[in-house]
């Protein structure tokens, strides 16, 4: 039984490691300028964790193979006691694993911060994002280049005033463009501001390697540059209620000329 267990453990470890090593189920192609850093970090983490995982599982299997089916009592077991007993063994293991986790965190946060904690490029295209149960809306400043002020009490799905604009007294709001698809130009930085009307949501586009929560009461900046025109799915990855499964929108990356044409064709919100 012990030897069968050793074989099964080894197979599980090797097959699952192979699935990662061969990229059988991997991320879709990255279409962002920062994504290669995320992917490299992910790869490094997978390699380090993968080597340790496989080594630990194979060691476990070897020990079980070698000693698993011995009878007898503790006094007759051939395994030597770890020098100093179990306590230093646990301490050493904890320190080693702790160092690994801290190193990965430290290196990883540098990559994360370079994407999420950096300033958007000056002149980045500003777009407001509003998440609500269970849809996303996107707002462009319109011809005047100014966003109307958001008044939460004026938010109304009934007349499509998702952003709570006050066109009667706020003239900058009248030409704002509000759409349900995030259309952006390729190779140009975009700077988003994430608002949520109700609960926590998340902005996740796999191809752009961006995942950022919406937090009620906060306006969260997010910026990136997409490189490849196409249509990509934006999904909410923060369980937000009954319709969460259906909360999505599309990201359309267009060539700069197509984007300029698209923007020209959009009707102002009011």
């Amino acid at each position, binding site marked *: 039984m012990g030897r069968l267990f050793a074989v099964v453990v080894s197979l599980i470890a090797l097959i699952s490691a192979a699935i990662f090593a061969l990229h059988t189920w991997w991320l879709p192609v990255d279409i962002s300028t920062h994504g290669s850093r995320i992917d490299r970090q992910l790869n490094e983490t997978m390699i380090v964790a993968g080597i340790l995982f496989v080594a630990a599982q194979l060691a476990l299997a070897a020990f079980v193979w070698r000693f698993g089916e011995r009878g007898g009592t503790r006094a007759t077991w051939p395994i030597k006691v770890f020098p100093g007993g179990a306590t230093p063994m646990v301490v050493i293991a904890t320190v080693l694993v702790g160092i690994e986790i801290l190193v990965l965190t430290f290196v990883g946060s540098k990559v994360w911060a370079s994407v999420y904690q950096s300033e958007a490029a000056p002149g980045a295209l500003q777009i407001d994002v509003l998440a*609500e*149960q*269970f*849809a*996303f809306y996107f707002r462009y400043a319109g011809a005047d280049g100014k966003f109307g002020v958001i008044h939460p009490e004026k938010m109304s*799905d*009934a*007349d*499509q005033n*998702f952003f709570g604009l*006050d*066109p*009667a007294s706020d003239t900058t709001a009248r030409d704002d463009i509000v*759409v*349900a*698809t995030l259309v952006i130009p390729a190779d140009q930085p975009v700077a988003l501001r994430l608002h949520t009307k109700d609960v926590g949501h998340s902005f996740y586009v796999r191809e752009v390697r961006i995942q950022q929560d919406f937090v009620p009461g906060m306006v969260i900046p997010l910026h990136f540059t997409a490189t490849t025109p196409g249509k990509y799915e934006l999904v909410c990855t923060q369980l937000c*209620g*009954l*319709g969460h499964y*259906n*909360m*999505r*929108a*599309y990201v359309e990356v267009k060539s700069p000329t197509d984007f300029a044409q698209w923007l020209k064709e959009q*009707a102002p*919100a*009011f």
Partner: protein
Amino acid sequence: MITRFTAIVALVGGTLASGPGPHRASPALAGGTISGKVTYTGTPPKARPIDMSKEPSCVAQHPTPVTTQDAVTGPGNSVEYVVVYISAGDEGAAAATDTVRYEQKGCQYIPHVAVMQVHQPLAVFNDDPTSHNIHPLAKVNAEWNKSQPKGAPPIRTTWDQPEFIAVKCNVHPWMHGYFVVLTTSHSTVTDSTGAFKLEGLPAGKYTVTAWHERFGRQSQEVTIAGTETKTANFVLTARPY
């Protein structure tokens, strides 16, 4: 199950084929008639396109782009979806027994405004290949919201109190409609030309009210003395925002 569902749809659809609104007076019904037209002065808000791109099955149902229905105006400043009803002079009317049909189709509510009497049966259908979660924002009546996956049976209910209830879908924020629950059995909704007709009115003095979700309400008194037809036109004030 599907057959039974279809049969119910056909049955209810058949009984309501005569037109919108809870009261469809037969032409043979004796009594007076109040007819007229609802128009606006001022500047109405623009009809805005509805972006349904997150629900491709609904986009596919609309060959031409869909626009908002909260202020639908037509030639000659006519206003559609105005509820015209007897707000005084018709007390104590018994509830109609025919079922008011409310559909979720192409991620829109059809009709945009459904008028019904207190205690009149209401059936809500989901004709879409996707889930809806209808949420009438009732304040006087009990508020509820119910999920209706594709192919689910209709939601059957009634309302206990008169109220103008905005209806939204908790899954598709752009979906918007109204349940108008009235005590009177004489009510209707203006058509695309802004015209309306209230028939079968016994002789008496009535207050006729026109209500629109954005342009407010207006009333006038009309006295009916027999089988005559009286005209009552309404001019509502529109604001662009």
